[in-house]
């Protein structure tokens, strides 16, 4: 286990020598950041809106939700089950996105940083193949 540095409990010895502000400004990092945010934020807003819409419908439009669809199964039940479907769906979509788009970028950056940490850290902008 890495010993805890006395002053900064979050500090890690592996990151000494990395110029984080420069990394943050770098093209590679900005690309990773916008890839992450442009996927995650809209999706988070979408599922919250869809969930709240469902809650509001259930409580303010009970007649609509009580519409029978198949046998004893009504629209409310189907919309509720659809919440499960979308949650599973969003999970699958995020995982596949993260594996395809986020991980390669993040791994390249991390390996780059770890190999340069301790040395001069301003050559991280070289893109890895």
């Amino acid at each position, binding site marked *: 286990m*890495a010993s805890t540095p006395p002053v900064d*409990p979050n500090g890690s010895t592996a990151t000494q020598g990395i110029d984080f502000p420069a990394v943050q400004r770098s093209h590679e990092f900005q690309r990773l950041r916008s890839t992450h945010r442009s996927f995650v934020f809209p999706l988070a807003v979408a599922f919250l809106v869809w969930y709240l819409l469902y809650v509001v419908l259930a409580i303010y439009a009970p007649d609509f939700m009580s519409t029978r669809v198949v046998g004893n199964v009504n629209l409310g039940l189907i919309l509720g089950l659809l919440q499960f479907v979308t949650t599973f769906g*969003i999970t699958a979509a995020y995982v596949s996105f993260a594996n395809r788009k986020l991980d390669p970028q993040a791994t390249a950056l991390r390996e780059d940083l770890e190999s340069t940490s301790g040395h001069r850290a301003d050559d991280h902008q070289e893109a890895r193949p």
Partner: protein
Amino acid sequence: MIAVPAVSTPAVHLAETATSTVGNPAINISIFLAFVLVTLVVVIRASKSTATAADYYAGGRSFSGTQNGLAIAGDYLSAASFLGIVGAIALQGYDGFLYSIGFFVAWLVALLLIAEPLRNTGKFTMADVLSFRLRQRPVRVAASISTLAVTFFYLLAQMAGAGALVSLLLGIGSRAGQSLVIVIVGVIMIVYVLVGGMKGTTWVQIIKACLLVSGVAVMTVWILALFGFNFSAVLGAAVETNNNPAMLEPGLKYGVSEISKLDFISLGLALVLGAAGLPHVLMRFYTVPTAKEARKSVVWAITLIGLFYLFTLVLGFGAAALIGADRIKGAPGGVNSAAPLLAYELGGSILMGLIAAVAFATILAVVAGLAITASASFAHDIYTSVIKKGTSDPRQELRVAKTTVVVIGLISIAGGIGAQGQNVAFLVALAFAVAASANLPTILYSLYWKRFTTRGAVLSMYGGLIISVVLIIFSPVMSGSETSMIPTADFAIYPLSNPGIISIPASFLLGFLGSLSERRPEDPRKQSEMEVRSLTGVGAEKAVSH
């Protein structure tokens, strides 16, 4: 974990009903003891490699995503989740189902926004992340206080739930008998955590999650088989048994007035935003070696939790169809007895005994998970980082953590005995609302908003904590109605029973305004470091190799 109607005083029901015990207490106890024995062996074996703080708090960060996912499900699906949701659906039909949806959808917040950056930037506790780029002392103290507050109310609810369950499952109706059981549950929990640390606790969670989900799956298939695998027929039978067509439609519980409608929206908000702010859930993300494993564990957790809630839909309507609301309400343990009664109806004493053991295991595992979170938060955030200013050696910190477990254990035993027959929903809703108000805004701001400051964090955390607790104290949960904790008094100025609709936006606003009005600027390099680390995982704590 679920805010479902109170466990009404079981002793009263016991006296009234002829069937004071269901199933065979001897079978229930022996299955329960077998579980305790097996898990103790596992815990003792796991403890052989618990040496360092990373071992004790984070299980050496050596759990796989799959194992951790099972453990998260074990942590999340508490006794109230199992017994409470089945009971709520059995009695309130469709409105009970709304709970499951909130608790389930909430996991997307954790998956999309929190799990991976948290694993990349933190070490042991929630405060590690929150104080990363802000001033250590005030933020750590605030985060630790809100962690202790959430876990305390959660613990009380679990302990009180344990007492209530006993009346039904083991046939112990007297207050003294139930108190004794709470003491036993508390002591076993202390032993688990002291001996096994996070590793032992995680194994207890894993075993419990497997038992719980497979037990519920078996019952689901059983019920569906009884109705020719036609879910519509289960619904039809539920309506027929209770002679109440409204149970398939929304509004049975929450549709009665404009206030109750708002109350439901408030509850829905607290549920969906509370889960990702629960400290014991957040801490689980540190037990895996990498952010990718953290992601995998959330996917496993979502799969299991989703399946579980789908099963409880069948169980709930099945209980309504096969047993009926009146018999459930009349049984000892009231609404919470629906699941065990259903097990008895289906498989007699043996299945009932198994389900009883699973219910106990559930409480034990959740309580152990909560205790380890609270002890880590106190030892790591308050003792080491604030009192000792980071100079304590890991041995000292570990000793403090273990002492904290004993203290928390004793407090929760005392609290559980005091809270017997109390409104469990009150305690659990408070824990969720506090988590959503005090923790979530600060977590999101510190991960995603560059201009967030110490002042914003401190205002948001204390503000969220105080507003949510004060609103609950002045709500109908506390006084002013027959089901209140203090039914004889009436100081319920706030009409809703859940504070979320006010306290959550207020806390977001406080964090925003506090940051804008900050005069002491934060270190911009820390912000850069946190953002780079959160997305790339550079410098993240590695697994401990043994």
